[in-house]
């Protein structure tokens, strides 16, 4: 066992850090305030290779390992989780799902431009009445011989407006329950697709979230992923990896809040000395640092398992649960350390706190992670 990163992994971490600290920081507050999608940043990160960094170079990806992905997600999320979530959805849900389960034709047509970052993808699973309970899909995909006909509504879709390629989960055989579910690759400009209004979110306001309505949307048969009825298993497998991305995002949010809290506490004076010299503050920083490091180890361990082709579903659930809950704790403490300054946007930590909340909810709530973890314990 060793705890050393390779030179390449460190170079990727530094590249992500350089981009975040130099470029993302410039307009992150304004984009959050006005809910502006970070289009130019996504383009720049795509040129650097971050949008398809895990994909095999033969499909135009970066060919990097999951450890590098965790390190990059941390650095981007320290500054801007709205950008990090676009990266996470594209890499660990859309690209990973297509690379692992798609046909060669599907990879050629859809994966390559996604891996190059020329277009981005979205993953459409949640519904108005199927969030945590993903088995009860109301969106239907009727088998019409040479095509499927999609009808229904998807909710809380990240990248809904900016994506060109959708991966849609829908029910083909309701009598077979979750074993009748399929996954489809759908071009966003297919007739019959319409978007709901831009959701006004508490945090990650710069990422575009909409509901998506399907009305008699024709999807060619060859766009189904895997065998008939593979959709639910596909979604669960893909989400196992997705959790590493979101766990790393949560860890990055916490890690960013800690960096800011340490810096502020060494500058701000009260009662004649820097506030870091007050034990009340120093102990908070110690508690925060322990949570950040533990989250990081959880994420890296899950990533290591994935890179070494070992089961990682429970490890990634633990990573996401712990990192998300820790992000909430650490960012709340960071705001407290900043006092009044922490409550205004200029000092960034209030935004990090709003962003942290979402990591406890999306891609499997903290409660769902506990189901995954306890089922594994009790099986």
């Amino acid at each position, binding site marked *: 066992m060793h705890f050393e990163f390779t030179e390449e992994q*460190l*170079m990727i971490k530094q*590249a992500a850090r350089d981009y975040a600290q130099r470029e993302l920081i410039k307009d992150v507050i304004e984009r959050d305030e006005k809910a502006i999608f970070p289009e130019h940043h996504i383009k720049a990160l795509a*040129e650097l*290779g971050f949008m398809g*960094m895990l994909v095999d170079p033969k499909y135009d990806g970066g060919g990097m390992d999951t450890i590098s992905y965790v390190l990059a997600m941390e650095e981007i999320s320290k500054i801007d989780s709205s950008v990090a979530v676009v990266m996470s959805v594209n890499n660990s849900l859309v690209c990973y799902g297509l690379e692992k389960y798609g046909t060669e034709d599907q990879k050629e047509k859809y994966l390559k431009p996604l891996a190059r970052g020329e277009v981005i993808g979205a993953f459409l699973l949640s519904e108005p009445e199927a969030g945590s309970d993903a088995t009860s899909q109301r969106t239907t995909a009727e088998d019409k011989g040479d095509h499927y006909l999609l009808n229904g509504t998807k909710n809380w879709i990240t990248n809904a407006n900016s994506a060109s390629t959708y991966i849609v989960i829908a029910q083909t055989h309701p009598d077979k329950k979750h074993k009748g579910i399929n996954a489809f690759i759908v071009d966003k400009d297919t007739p019959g697709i319409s978007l709901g209004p831009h959701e006004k979110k508490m945090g990650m306001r710069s990422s575009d979230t909409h509901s998506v309505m399907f009305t008699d949307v024709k999807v060619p048969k060859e766009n189904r992923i895997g065998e008939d009825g593979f959709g639910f298993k596909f979604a669960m497998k893909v989400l196992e990896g997705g959790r590493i991305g979101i766990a790393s995002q949560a860890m990055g949010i916490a890690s960013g809040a800690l960096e800011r809290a340490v810096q502020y506490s060494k500058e701000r004076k009260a009662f004649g000395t820097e506030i870091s010299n007050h034990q009340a503050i120093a102990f908070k920083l110690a508690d925060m640092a322990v949570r950040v490091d533990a989250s990081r180890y959880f994420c890296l361990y899950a990533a290591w398992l994935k890179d070494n082709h070992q089961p990682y579903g429970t490890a990634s659930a633990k990573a996401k649960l712990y990192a998300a809950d820790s992000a909430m704790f650490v960012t709340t403490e960071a705001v407290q350390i900043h006092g009044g300054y922490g409550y205004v946007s200029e000092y960034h930590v209030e935004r990090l706190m709003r962003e942290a909340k979402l990591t406890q909810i999306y891609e499997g709530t903290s409660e769902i992670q506990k189901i995954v973890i306890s089922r594994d314990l009790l099986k």
Partner: protein
Amino acid sequence: MKILVCMSNVPDTTTKIRFKEDNTKFDDAGVQWIINPWDELALTRALELKEASGGSISSITVACVGEATTEPTIRKALAIGADDAIRVNAVAQDSYFVAAQLAEVVKQGSYDIVLCGIESSDYNNSAVGGMLAEFIDVPSVSSVSALNIDNGTVSVNREIDGGKETLEVKLPFVAVVQKGIAIDPRIPNMRGIMMARKKPLTVVEPVDADVLVEYEE
């Protein structure tokens, strides 16, 4: 046309400098090493020129005087886009010693343009570029804040008292470059990072050269 970019391996500029052994040695524990910022800008400009040259600039080489521990920093230069690298296997003892080593590298390589950062952010001596030009007996231009190649004509801007001076230069020459030569240093992309280990990094042994700086015991 071939360009050589000379680079120093220096502690990250935010490093808290500490000393050890009764304040006689630099404590490098936990220090992150980077390409000297001025050299990194020089490399960025060299890459911009190569990309715009339509093939007339055939290669960009980086050269560094340092022990094997400097290789991660050198490979970062390769990841950013340099074609190959030369490491002179010696501790960079002082400006005279470093310039003498780089002179040998230049003599072996027939470069048309040699770029040096105006200073390194560790000792800030601002001496290597000028010394190097003297060693190899080619002209040098100091304080270069812009370098352009237009139809084969190379011109530079330099800051002077009360204004800016534009000069046309004949090759080969040494440009000692400062801020402004490029806007932001380049961030390596995935492909570059993957390729860095596959690019040639030649290690050469140092030539004899005096060390002029005397340290008090």
